């Protein structure tokens, strides 16, 4: 999951700092622990994504072995391919949680207390 997250949220300079990525991955794990049968679907989508990327890029190289710029390029190709749904599934989960981090929310101009930390609590 981290391999994909680092690419999705990378700016021109590299991935977000390690603390934020650690928080994200911990929270994704907690999410997966609580969602019953759906856990298998998410893990399946993630495996699928790892499996199709070398095919779509025709490089034979696995996502995990790619540098971050290579991963960005590879996942961009996946997004254009028949396998876009796999990336969307993984990206949706990552984005929902990532932008709940108040710093990540702020970076995109999102300031709604009620949808990150709850106002007044």
């Amino acid at each position, binding site marked *: 999951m981290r391999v994909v997250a680092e*690419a*999705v*949220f*990378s*700016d*021109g300079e590299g991935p977000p700092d390690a603390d934020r990525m650690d928080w994200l991955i911990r*929270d994704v794990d*907690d*999410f997966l*622990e*609580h*969602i*019953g*049968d*759906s856990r298998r*679907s*998410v893990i399946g989508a993630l495996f699928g994504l790892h499996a199709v990327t070398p095919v779509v890029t025709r490089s034979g190289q696995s996502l995990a072995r790619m540098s*971050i710029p290579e991963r*960005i390029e590879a*996942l*961009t190709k996946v*997004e*254009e391919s028949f396998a*876009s*749904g796999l*990336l*969307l599934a993984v*990206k*949706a989960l*990552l*984005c*929902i*949680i*990532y*932008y*709940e981090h108040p710093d990540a*929310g702020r*970076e*995109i*101009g*999102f*300031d*709604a*207390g*009620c*949808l*990150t*930390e*709850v*106002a*007044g*609590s």
Partner: protein
Amino acid sequence: MSGSITQGGTLDGDLELDCDVVVVGSGAGGMVVAAELAEAGHDVVILEEGRHYTPEEYGAMRPSESMRHLWRDGALTFAVGMDDSPMINVTMGRAVGGSSVLTGGVCFRTPGYILDDWAKRLGLSDLTEASMDPCFTAVEKSVHVEEVPVSMRSKSTLMFARGAEQQGFKLKPLRRNTKNCNGCGRCNFGCPHGAKLSVDAAYLPRALAAGARLYSECFVDRVTSDGGRATGVVGRLTRGSSRRKTGRLTVRARRVVVAAGSYFSPGILARSGVGKQSGQLGRNMTLHPGFRMMARFDERLDGWKGALQSAYSDEYEKDHITMVGLFIPPGVIAATMKGVGPKHLAKARGVPHVAVFGGMIHDEGGGTVRNVLGRTFATYKMHPRDRATMPKVVRIMAETFFAGGAKEVYLPILGLDAVTPDSLRTLDLDHIPAKRYECSSQHPLGTCRMGSTAAHSVVDPSGESWELSGLFVADGSIVPTSLGVNPQVTIMSMATRIAWKMRDRPYD
């Protein structure tokens, strides 16, 4: 007399209970029946598979925390599209209060022409507008249905309204079950301010005050019977996120009300050997397949500020389309825009400029739920008329946003980048395969439908099973057709009617 709430996960060993009425499921249907019957003096036990969270607890959750604790299976529940039908993300709640906790609060009475259709086609001549009026009125009073003032509309909704006016129609104000709503826009994750009167807030306190006993983390497997009469239910106590079985559950009751929602009530009946004779059990599922449209404007909108749902349009009802305002968390908006890395971040920074509106199809049905290897499996084969409506609803909403000044529109179509007015004109939406449409539903209905004959329905006009006396169904599954409007008031009103009929009938 005062009732109680017990988290099943805190109990050790087996649980055995006796009562007058056991209600399975504490959502929009079940909680209403429970409160009405408890207040009429019946000894009521409510069993709920999910956990109980107080409004303070769920109000403190982030949206994704709500999705993992209150929504069923992290909101990743689907109906598999058959043939040229989309895959539909059908979401629902699993907690005390059921899906009611997650609504945007939208309240519509059952449209009169729908009730007329039920009377004419299905013989449900008792369910007229006049005879249902006391039920609607009782529900609306209990959950405080009020009109959303125009001042609470988000800028996102105002943009769609502007486009609508350009296109020659006006949005109408929605009515919602709220009191002192501050427009913070997070209704779908549980209201943190106690302003949305979901059934856990409006009906549970009434049920408890009248002595009802609620047990959460109790999964009901089947209804027990003896000599053609329902005698109770059996199931299991569960604990924690793994829902590990911790004990056996046995409830002996004089009457049983199944209200586990359209996905799960048919399974409980099937496992009990009831409801199969008509051939309708688990069939006839309607969904109101829905599509969300996102549009980017030059001006900053902060679309999350304002009542989540405040306005709608029935301008295209003749085309079986209802459009309803909504908003979704920024993370979801960002995820659905194409891009990875810097391109993704650039799009995500545009989220404050994005407006969202939803359109749903008043569908003909075509959904089925069945048990496959012990799990509930749903399929949906879209009716050709509805299949033809999909591109129509998408085009109407996109054109409305463009008329309102949108620069780009993000169609709910997998793999498609933002479109401009020119590219929309040349886009052949009719020939895009249904599987590429991103479709969702929050309104599964009809899988144990009510009817006037045992040959065509699962329950009779009083909500009682045609096959097992003393077994009632009172949730979305009995609603016999799709409604074209959001269903919670219909479900609660039909549940009220069933409860009143049960209340007035002596026990055998």
